[in-house]
């Protein structure tokens, strides 16, 4: 099943006086896992629900392959969605829940067993969903999303409730889906768990786009920095400032120089004959990148 692009253009949603999403623009491409990242309350869920016609936008468009979700001839066969692990009748059995979807979507009932096998719930298929753990419910949601073998997958915090083994399985599963050419858009506020999964990232905060692009190129946008241990911190700060760098003595004898790379800072300190005991590049993970983008660049509390 080949995916189609997900395109969001000028998307805005206001709930009364509260702007949940403001002029959001991004694209998720087929064959790639796109991480839709942001802290809680950033507008991720509202955006995904607008994509799926559950919430109507105040303005702007959210399309899948150029069409609104409600205009798709067979929505469940084109788009699979995992939104929340609570949208089940607790007295309904897992197999019945999936059969209910299959009947309405015109999907062969044999497919129910296939997706139960796919998510590892076959042994529990006759149990009532009310007795399921959160992780099992997430798997059932995923099974429902995969029923129509869709080209587009939209997942809202799918790792919630999964144990480490389940998260590892989910990562591999999403990568596999993208490798088949499907479009995978997955939201999360836990960026570390996404780093090993996503190709592209869309970072939002307070309803606005903060960054978009391949994960690798985004990391390069972050200002580099060096941590230096020296017996002459005051001189180092002075020299660095003269070189238009941003030094901060974070501890006695330890200076972090923002904006510096080894090829620049090394010769600079050598030419000024500053004694250096230790000099290392600061390694910034995705989590720090995320914090920088959603707080510093955001500028609002």
């Amino acid at each position: 099943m080949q995916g189609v692009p997900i395109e969001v253009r000028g998307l805005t949603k206001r709930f009364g006086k509260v702007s949940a999403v403001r002029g959001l623009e991004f694209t998720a491409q087929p064959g790639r896992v796109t991480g839709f990242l942001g802290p809680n309350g950033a507008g991720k869920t509202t955006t995904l629900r607008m994509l799926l016609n559950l919430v109507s936008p105040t303005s702007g468009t959210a399309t899948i392959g150029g069409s609104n979700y409600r205009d798709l001839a067979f929505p469940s066969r084109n788009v699979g969605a995992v939104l929340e692990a609570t949208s089940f009748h607790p007295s309904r059995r897992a197999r019945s829940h999936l059969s209910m979807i299959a009947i309405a979507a015109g999907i062969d009932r044999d497919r129910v067993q296939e997706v139960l096998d796919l998510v590892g719930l076959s042994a529990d298929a006759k149990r009532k969903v009310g007795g399921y753990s959160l992780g099992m419910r997430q798997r059932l949601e995923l099974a429902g999303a995969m029923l129509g073998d869709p080209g587009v997958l939209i997942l809202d915090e799918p790792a919630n409730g999964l144990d480490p083994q389940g998260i590892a399985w989910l990562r591999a599963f999403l990568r596999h889906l993208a490798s088949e050419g499907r479009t995978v858009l997955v939201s999360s506020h836990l960026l570390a768990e996404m780093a090993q999964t996503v190709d592209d990232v869309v970072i939002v905060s307070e309803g606005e786009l903060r960054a978009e692009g391949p994960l690798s190129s985004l990391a390069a946008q972050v200002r580099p920095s060096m941590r230096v241990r020296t017996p002459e911190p005051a001189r180092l700060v002075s020299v660095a400032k003269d070189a238009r760098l941003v030094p901060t003595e974070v501890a006695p004898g330890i200076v972090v120089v923002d904006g510096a790379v080894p090829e620049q800072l090394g010769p600079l300190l050598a030419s000024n004959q500053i004694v250096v005991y230790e000099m290392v590049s600061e390694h910034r993970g995705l989590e720090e990148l995320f914090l920088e983008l959603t707080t510093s660049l955001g500028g609002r509390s």
Partner: protein
Amino acid sequence: MIRVLRSELFKFRTTPGPWVVLAVTLVLSALGIVAAFVNPGFGVSFGAPHSIGRLRELVGAGYGAVGIVGPLIGILCVTGEYRHKVITTSLLVTPRRGVLLFAKALASGIWGIVLCVASFVLVAVMGVPLLVSEGGSVDALVRQIPPVAPGLIGAFALLAVFGVGVGALVKNQIAAVVLAIGLSLVLEPVLVELVYHFFHIELNWLPNQDAAALAGGLTRGGQNGPSVVPNELLSWWAGGLALVAWGVGTALLGYFTTFRRDVT
């Protein structure tokens, strides 16, 4: 549309609520059957019904349930989805909300018919043997099926559709159930009496009055039997049309005010 309707009927079969409503229907119908054998007056006696009116009461023993279980089934069909958030799944599969609501109305109407047929089956397996044992005539009973059955089936189905409208308007399940049962058992009878007492106007177009009119062969009591409802009812077809209007009206109102709202 057919797929969505089939899915809605499947939902009925796979949750306990509709089966509980069926059980309530059977209990109330059983009481109705027993009541048809009770001869009122001085020194209440138990015996086979002979008058046309009493025989019709026996055929339509489920009439006592229709005002409660009819709306209840429609309400459960809509509000149960909001209560358990299944509405999210339903709208992902069927994003056109009008189609989904229409399918729910049809499915509820069909389940209403199932409830009515179940009450008839109970009459056959409980009422008929009782009638025979008390020396009554089965032929006389069978002759009263045509005047009673179609109207009663229609009343069950259309009140269920009305329930869908109420559920679409009031998404909170408890509030909707209390509203419907309160309307049926308390508010409507009191309102009818009060308005007639003070203004001499028959409020015979309210939902339960319409259901009574639709089941006219039963409620008007035939040639010499007692009437179940003393008020002046609409004709059966006018009552049926009024009940359709209640169902369509509340469903449209619910669709435009509540059902189309964001599902967050």
